[in-house]
């Protein structure tokens, strides 16, 4: 069980939204993490824009330090430590978001906000796929033992 946190989740979501609006205002770009991260990886199509993309990703990576400084508390996290589970998950998320041109932020937040039909369909697809995956793992496979 995890605690239902509507207020904190709404505020956190609004901050994610604020960040996306700032990135549009300053850089003129969509705040899609898989896209921005992907552009930083080889093979590089163009060198232009790598600097600000690296700065954005760096900001996300070091944000836990900021949270610890503000709250003084440890950040709660439960992560599977299974090598095979996490390697397959990483490969699938990387390959899938690359192929599908976006993830939860690019399609789910920025795309839906622009009422893009591609992003709405992509979000529905990865949500349904996620629901089915967890159902199969937790209720059919784990439930069978």
């Amino acid at each position, binding site marked *: 069980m*995890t605690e*239902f946190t*509507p207020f904190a*989740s*709404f*505020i*956190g*979501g*609004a*901050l*994610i*939204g*604020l*960040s*996306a*609006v*700032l*990135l549009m205002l300053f*850089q*003129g770009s*969509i*705040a899609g*993490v898989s896209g921005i*991260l*992907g552009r930083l*990886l080889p093979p590089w199509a163009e060198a232009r824009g790598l*600097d600000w993309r690296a700065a954005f990703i*760096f900001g*996300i*990576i070091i*944000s*836990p330090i*900021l949270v610890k400084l503000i709250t003084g508390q440890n950040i709660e996290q*439960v*992560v*599977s430590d299974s090598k095979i589970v*996490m*390697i*397959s*998950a*990483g490969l*699938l998320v*990387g*390959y*899938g978001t*690359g*192929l599908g*041109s976006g993830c939860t*932020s690019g399609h789910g937040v920025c795309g*839906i*906000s622009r009422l893009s039909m*591609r992003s709405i*369909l*992509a979000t529905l697809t*990865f949500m349904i*796929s*996620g*629901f089915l995956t*967890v159902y199969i793992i937790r*209720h059919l496979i784990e439930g069978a033992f």
Partner: protein
Amino acid sequence: MGKIISAFIAGLIFGLGLIISGMSNPAKVLNFLDLAGTFDPSLLFVMGGAILVVFTGYKLVLKRNTPIFDNAFHIPTRKDIDKNLIIGSAIFGLGWGIGGFCPGPSLTSILLGSEGIIYFFPSLIVGLIITKLI
């Protein structure tokens, strides 16, 4: 310089939002996806808060002729619903449901030093590079 600093600050705020919202915790994400079990609807509030702000904010920002540090807005223009969009998103959902990480929260997890992120993050990078090569 302003372009880099503003992107860095946007990244910090993005990460802050992911952590405060609980989205950076795979256990919470997996419970959101577990409709038939320990369902935690918090993530709907994350999406709701984010979409509300971006929907309104984009309308205001896009009234400008150009962004502050570039000479044009770079908005995706594709409208076609192709096979890659759907198959890629389905594969992403599969990986998301297995590990509880999407790309953003995997970034905020690097410094938290769990064992799982040591396997997940390099694999994410490999997966992204593969799609660029094919």
